């Protein structure tokens, strides 16, 4: 039997990639370890090595093909004695090559780390707005054209727009310039703004965080990228003691206008040290603002606001959301104010409060609940500090029930804060205890099944919502 060579995943979150180059041609002998092809994604380039010995019988996906889904067969290797002719005759275990171009990624074939938490992103533009409830911002004028873009592109556009309007804005961090961003969020910025304003740093979080804050002392407006917020722990002293407190300690004389941004929250299959949510940590600190967008429109509008804000802003992005597409208003200057939640889906029976990645659980759960006749209202918090408690309270007064959803740990989490606020301000309106769905209080395990258990799930949100509705 000919052996299929499948499109490999370069990272746990990769769903498709480009076949950049074939190093072997049909008929070449290959042995284990030979580099047979190069594949690339928006994040990285990698060589594909043969695992088996034989002859490259047929190339199924020609070089230069973009968006090849992970696990798509890209070539056939013939074992000794097998004849290439059988392949050409179609006698092989034929797999339609075109499957790679438009079909959604075959998630089931992967060692899917957490199926429920990596929703298949809409591939075709028409599928970009799966939830009809996802309303454009109320501040967007009627009839505004919407363009579909990924969260990654929206973030990049926000930075580029702000850099065009203000020369004191610059981007600094690891791999932000030449490499175009470890997650390609800063793609193209070096080319447009040059090395003066798009600055690669050594791997030195504590140092470049302090340097960025010092530059802000002097009146510049740095955007400091953390490759991930896991590494920002190295810089925690600077973030809290230097960035958050200086305005207060100087009696208002000196401010720190700086954005710290990068992916936060559990990623897929990277285990405990690279997979955690810092929402609650930063939300605890007076002097910091904390933003955690879900949609591309919010990512763009909120990042623009954050850059203009005179305070230090922790801007928590999410690796899994980077590649997801959403409609974004096509406006010259689309800005979303910090500190305002958004009703992502209106409802009457239970309020589900979520933000960033946890919105994906909340929206799916709301769909499930609707099938059972429960009409859930989903609030996208968007900014965690200052928290728009008023919007939550207003919703609770309508529904009488609250479920919070977060990927972070339960104890002293953001959900705990929401529960306390609702209890303090809307106790008389509650018909059930505020219920939290959260990450489990364990370091993130590596094993796929355990990781899934450690994270919140749609099923847990559904169960919690039903419980508070006494259903």
């Amino acid at each position: 039997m000919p052996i299929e060579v499948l499109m490999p995943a370069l990272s746990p979150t990769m769903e498709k990639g480009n076949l950049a180059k074939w190093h072997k041609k049909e008929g070449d002998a290959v042995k284990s370890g030979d580099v047979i092809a190069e594949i690339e994604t928006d994040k990285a380039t990698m060589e594909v090595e043969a695992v088996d010995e034989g002859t490259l019988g047929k190339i199924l996906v020609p070089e230069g093909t973009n968006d090849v889904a992970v696990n798509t067969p890209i070539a056939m290797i013939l074992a000794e004695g097998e004849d290439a002719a059988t392949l050409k005759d179609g006698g092989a275990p034929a797999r339609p090559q075109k499957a790679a171009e438009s079909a959604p990624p075959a998630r089931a074939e992967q060692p899917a780390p957490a199926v429920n938490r990596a929703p298949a992103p809409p591939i075709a533009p028409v599928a970009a707005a799966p939830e009809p409830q996802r309303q454009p911002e109320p501040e967007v004028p009627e009839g505004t054209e919407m363009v579909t873009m990924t969260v990654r592109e929206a973030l990049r556009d926000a930075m580029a727009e702000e850099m065009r309007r203000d020369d004191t804005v610059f981007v600094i961090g690891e791999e932000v310039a030449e490499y175009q961003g470890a997650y390609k969020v800063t793609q193209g910025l070096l080319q447009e703004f040059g090395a003066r304003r798009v600055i690669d740093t050594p791997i030195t979080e504590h140092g470049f965080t302090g340097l960025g804050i010092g530059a802000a002392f002097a009146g510049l407006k740095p955007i400091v990228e953390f490759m991930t917020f896991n590494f920002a722990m190295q810089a925690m002293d600077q973030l809290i003691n230097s960035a958050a407190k200086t305005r207060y300690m100087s009696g208002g004389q000196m401010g720190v206008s700086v954005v710290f941004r990068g992916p936060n929250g559990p990623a897929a299959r990277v285990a405990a040290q690279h997979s955690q949510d810092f929402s609650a940590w930063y939300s605890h600190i007076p002097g910091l603002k904390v933003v955690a967008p879900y949609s591309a429109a919010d990512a763009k509008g909120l990042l623009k606001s954050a850059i203009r804000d005179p305070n230090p802003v922790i801007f928590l992005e999410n690796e899994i959301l980077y590649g997801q597409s959403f409609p974004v208003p096509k406006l010259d200057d689309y800005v979303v104010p910090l500190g305002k939640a958004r009703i992502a889906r209106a409802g009457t029976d239970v309020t589900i409060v979520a933000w960033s990645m946890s919105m994906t659980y909340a929206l799916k759960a709301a769909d499930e609940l609707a099938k059972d006749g429960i009409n859930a209202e989903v609030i996208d918090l968007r900014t965690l500090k200052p928290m728009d408690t008023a919007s939550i309270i207003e919703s609770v007064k309508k529904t009488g029930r609250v479920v919070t959803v977060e990927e972070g740990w339960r104890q002293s989490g953001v959900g705990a804060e929401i529960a306390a606020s609702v209890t303090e301000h809307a106790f008389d309106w509650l018909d059930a205890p505020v219920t939290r769905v959260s990450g489990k209080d364990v370091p993130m395990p590596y094993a796929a099944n355990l990781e899934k258990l450690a994270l919140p799930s749609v099923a847990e949100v559904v169960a919690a919502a039903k419980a508070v509705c006494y259903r």
Partner: protein
Amino acid sequence: MAVASNKSAAQPAAVRRADAEQAAEAPDFNQEQELRAYRNMLLIRRFEEKAGQLYGMGLIGGFCHLYIGQEAVVVGMQMAIKEGDAVITGYRDHGHMLACGMDPKGVMAELTGRRGGYSKGKGGSMHMFSVEKGFYGGHGIVGAQVPLGTGLSFANRYRGNDNVSLTYLGDGAANQGQVYESFNMAKLWKLPVIYIIENNQYGMGTSVARASATTNLSQRGRSFDIPGEQVDGMDIRAVKAAGDKAVKWCRDGNGPIILEMLTYRYRGHSMSDPAKYRPKEEVDKVRTEHDPIEQVRSRLLKKGFATEDSLKKIDAQVRAVVNEAAEFATNDAEPDAAELWTDVYAE
């Protein structure tokens, strides 16, 4: 001006200087410079003595780190810089603020936690700032000011001006990791920053020899090819000369430079430090033989730049300034309760 650069820094500065016998190399000050040095150092000395007194009276709380003994470092460096240059330091910062020209009343009132303090009473001894005077704090975490000061110099380079950043740190901070992260970036990007290591021989109660694998701290930039030299930090002429050279180095676009100022603090680490880790004789020896203010005073008299009487007049003026500051700081009201909630965020 470079003194004893190959000698161990483990011993008190006074001992090393006696061995080196190079003090005469320091270029002379003219009359105006000597008088300015005298007055500005004396202001710091008297201010700090008064702060110690107010602390003893319970008017100043918390931590209070006095700069007595180290005055020549900051006053000398200040004589080497110009308008627009930035100064940043750690928590032993009162001297730096006064040298930058900040109002002694506002500094003292901050120490007593009053509304007229530089931070409205919300910062205290370790957290004061004056953007107007180019003073960027006042930082309470050992070493944290080093990347911040590197960032100030980054801003200068970004804006394309020729200003420099004087980033002060102590011998204790010289062992913090973020210092070396800063050195690396500063050299990599040729940032105009002067790292001034005020080696007063003790990081709190631990001598340099007990804390540092290599005690010539001026050479701590070697891995990054940052030049450095040891300077007699008790001789203001040596400090100014080293400062002039370092400032030129930075303004000429050569990147960072390190000056290790060999100095000595007479008082404990903070007010609550009984200073049992060093013999009293060590302190006395430095005070009697190498006091930075006495050195200037004796030169002023010897050169005929001043008389006992004219110096007494300066002494009286300085005392009056300090007394006025103390009086203000004692009588000024505490901040309004509403101030608790202001300045957390800018609107």
